[in-house]
Structure formats: C-alpha cells, structure tokens
C-alpha cells in the first residue's frame, strides 16, 4: 500500500512538469453549444402549446364540451362560441381543448408501452450473441410487417373499443421501431473501447447495459419517442374516426372529424378545426423529433 502510494507520489512529481503545459489546453467552461435547430424551436413551441391546452382544459373551458343544447346548433364562430358549435350545439373550442387531453394521454401511453418493451428488447438484441440478436430482430420484423391499424382493430374486437385498448395496441405496434433503432445504437456502443475497458474492469453485462449502453442510446430513445408520439396521435385519430377509439362522450379529435362528415356540405368548418389540430400536433412532434435528432446526432457534433 505505502510503497505504491510513494510510487504514485513520485510519478506525480514527474507529472508536475507537464501539468502546466497540459493545463493551458483545458477548454474554459462547458463546450460551446451549437445553435438550436429551427425545427426544434418550432416543434417545441407547438408541443408546449398542446400541453398548455391540455392543462388549461382541467381548470377552464369556455363551455361544457359535452353539453348538448339544441337551441344553439351549428352556430358560426362568434365571441360566445369561438369555433362555433356542432350539430348537437356543443362548443367546438371546448371540445378541441378537451380533445388535446385524449391526444396527449394516447401518445404517452402508446409511447410508454413501446419504449418500455422496445428499448430493453433492443439492448438485449444488441448485446446478446449475434444469432440470438438476429432471431429477436426477425421476430421484430414479423410484428413490423403487421399493419398497426389492423392490429388495433383486432384488439378492439377482442377487448372492446376504448381509448386504453387502442393506446396499448398502438404501443405494441410501435415496439419494433424502438427495438430496431436501439439495437443499432447498442451495437455501436458495444464496439467502443469504453465498453471493452468496462469489461476489463470486471463489469458484468447488466452493469454495462445500465451504465454505458442506456445513457448513450438515450438520445435515440428521445427522438424515437417524439416521432412515435406523432404516429400515435395520428393512429388514435384514425381509430376514433373509424369508431374503434375513444367512445363518446369523451371529446376526441378523431371522432369530431367523423361526426363532422355528414355536415361537410353545410358546415365544413366542423371538419377544419379538429383536422388542423391533428395536423399541427403531428407536425409539431415530428419537427421536435427531427430537431432533437439534429441536436443529438454525434456525426454532426463538430459541423459548426
């Protein structure tokens, strides 16, 4: 012990000479930040707007979004009814606000299911022996080849139509996207010398997965979550439109679209508001995903 320490001391003295030279090379403070990509900014704004809407709907909506009032059917937009009313006299703006909750809820559960299963699956497939990883990925391809909406409709047929069933089905259909991406990232991390060093230090595969692989693929997870969110929102809208999603009276943008269908020639605005809302949210999450990818992509690290 003491011999080693003495030796370290001596080596330290020798190192002192070079220390001054080395110190001057230390960059001051943190690495300078790259400018924020425009897509990240716009996407972030849209996404925060939707979150704001959803939060707002808990404390305030201009009218009760489920209140049916035949006396105010099909009103045009006015200071009283900002987006007008639908064929039952319900306030469209209030429904849009409430619908954002459903949309976000769907996104979170679907992405949560997909990430919670897909990420560990991808890491296992990336760290396991090659043949086993390939086997997992071929199974993955099978799920990937199955149309997501068809899977969801099957789930609805078996377990009954409902928001939760739809969300879980969408989540399951999104697992392969996560697994495939994370496997690629894991394979890359496993090739690095710091993983070799960790193995040489005596780290087991579980520690390596948790301490090295997961932190280094986390940016991939965030990007995929953002894109997956957009897919889930779109899928929920489609399912609600088809009647397999959120059952009435809970407001949902997809069902609003479907209900507006028969009024299309009289009041096309009824289709415009939920349609635009869906399009903007999907765009927002996609932009956010793109922006985050640009931000995290190590290949772009030194471009500027």
């Amino acid at each position, binding site marked *: 012990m003491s011999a080693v320490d003495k030796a*370290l*001391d001596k080596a330290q003295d*020798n190192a002192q000479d*070079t220390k001054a*030279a080395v110190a001057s090379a230390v960059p001051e403070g943190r690495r300078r930040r790259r400018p924020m990509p425009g897509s990240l900014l716009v996407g972030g704004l849209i996404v925060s707007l939707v979150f704001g809407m959803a939060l707002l709907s808990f404390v305030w909506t201009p009218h009760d979004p489920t209140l049916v009032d035949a006396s105010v059917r099909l009103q045009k937009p006015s200071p009283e009814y900002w987006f007008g009313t639908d064929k039952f006299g319900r306030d469209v703006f209030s429904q849009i606000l409430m619908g954002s909750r459903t949309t976000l809820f769907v996104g979170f559960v679907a992405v949560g299911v997909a990430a919670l299963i897909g990420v560990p699956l991808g890491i296992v497939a990336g760290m396991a022996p090659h043949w086993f990883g390939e086997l997992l990925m071929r199974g993955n391809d099978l799920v990937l080849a199955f149309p997501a909406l068809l899977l969801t409709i099957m789930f609805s047929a078996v377990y009954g139509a409902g928001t939760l069933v739809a969300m879980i089905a969408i989540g399951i259909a999104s697992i392969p996207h996560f697994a495939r991406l994370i496997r690629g990232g894991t394979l890359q991390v496993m090739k690095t010398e*710091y993983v070799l*060093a960790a193995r040489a230090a005596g780290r087991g595969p579980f520690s390596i997965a948790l301490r090295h692989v997961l932190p*280094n693929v986390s940016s991939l997870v965030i990007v995929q979550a953002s894109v997956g969110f957009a897919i889930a929102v779109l899928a929920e809208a489609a399912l609600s439109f088809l009647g397999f999603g959120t059952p009435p009276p809970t407001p949902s943008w997809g069902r609003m679209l479907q209900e507006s269908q028969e009024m299309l020639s009289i009041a096309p605005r009824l289709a415009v508001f939920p349609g635009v809302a869906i399009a903007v949210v999907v765009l927002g999450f996609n932009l956010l995903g793109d922006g985050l990818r640009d931000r995290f992509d190590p290949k772009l690290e030194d471009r500027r």
Partner: protein
Amino acid sequence: MAEQPTSATLAPEPRTGPVDAISVRDVTRDYRRPRTSLRRPSPPVHALRGVSFDIPQGQRFGIVGESGCGKSTLLRILAGLDRPTSGSVAIDGRDITGLPERQLKFVRERLQLVFQDPMSALDPRMRVGDIVAEPLVAQGHPNRTERVAELLEAVGLGADAAQRYPHQFSGGQRQRISIARALAPRPKIIVADEPVSALDVSVRAQVLNLIADLVDELSLTLVFVSHDLSVVRHVCDRVAVMHDGQIVETGPTEQVYEEPRHPYTRRLIAAVPTLGKALSGVSAADLNREYRP
C-alpha cells in the same frame, strides 16, 4: 524463463518465484467472414497464426507490426476479452483460456488496458471521476473518492478534473484519464494498445514518459503495442515483431533495432521516417520494394 504450468487447475494460486506474468502458447484466432457464395462458406481470416511468447514479471514488452497484423486481436485475447481459436494464454501462471467470465476475476484485478483512441476509450456520458472509479466500483474497493483524486494527481491532472466530462479534455489529457483508470485497481500488468498513436507528436513524449515512469515506480509489467518502432524503442526492453498474424522476430529492443534479422523487421525500421531520409527523397514505393511477403 520459468516452465509453464501444465494446467490452471494444478496451480490455482500464483506461484511464488519467477512465474511469467504472461505466457502465450501457439495462439491462433480465426474470424469468419460473411458468406458471399451460396455453395460454400467464405474462407476464415486467420488473424493470429501460432503466436507464442513469454513475458517475465516486470518486463516492458513491445509488440510492433503494421495495422491489421493481429496486434489488437492478440491484446484482447491476453486480456481475456476474446477467446483464441486454439492455443492457450496464462496470466501469472494461471491458464485463462476457456474460463468463464466469473473465473476471470483475477485477470480483471491484475491486468488493465489503455486504449488507442482517446475519444472512444472514455464514455462521453460519464464524469471523469466515475470513469476512473469504474474498476474500483466493479471490484468493490473502498475509499473510492480519495483513490480517484490520488490517481488524477498522479497522472498530472487536478483533482477537480473528476467533476468534468471527457469532451472537456484534450487528447493527451484523455489518455492520462485512461491511464488513471487502468491504474485504479492496482494492477500488476498494463496492456497498452497504441496509447500514443492518436496523439500529437508534442504530447506523445509526455504521455510516453508518464507511462514509463508509472510502470517503473509501481514495478508493473508492461505490454506495449505500436506500429511505430521508435516509440517501442523508447519504452520497451524487449520487442516482438508481428507480421500477418505471426511473430517473425523477438529480441532485446536494441538488438532488434540495430541488427534486424527478419526482412520484414528491416523494412519496418527502414520505414521509420528520419530527416535524412526525407531529404534524400526515399518514397513509400522504395520501401515496398525491399520486402514482399
């Protein structure tokens, strides 16, 4: 040089007396290439073909050879991170070939690695303190914080470096961090894979001297791999020249350098750039003409 113990099971504890730190016997390693024909599998790549050598305790052993000659494969096998196709490797007299990971604990404690690429060798998401402490955590050492500070001082970085991330350091500094991590569990053998090849010439000498000093002070066994004979000459007592998966020449560094016996070694020495050669206009084509395998 000591006789090889015939089996690890006969010598579970390292023997007292002059047991070689590392001994390698007829190690081969084949890699399978992806199939390109439906009718027959691709021929395997022989990365190593019958490599044997012994490194006594405390020796600084150099391995030189051009890139792709199997140096890195050999190192991984030495460190128990890869398995030879045939042959055996013994660390401190204990055979490690074919042992499962949980029986390689003594290798993890006694042998540590320093890698070539200072970018890839440190996890970008970990603080330097955690990187250096990793072997200590993995092997359950106490008093980690003190030890990390002591190590960072020893390699010429301030203790405040522990709180920072690898990207905040230069290539030479990162290599110092790698060295600190390698020394953390108080190993007896350091295996360095081209530790200065990725560094600027100006920093190279500093890092080389640091390695040489630490190896001296802590009386470690050093295995130093490089494609650059002049670097190996600077650090090592003995050198093995590798070519195409085989060791073509071994001997004391000065002897190999002054009187190379194998034509490949001669070519390698001729390839070391010197001012004289650069001025007289020797080209790469001239060097190739001297020796063809």
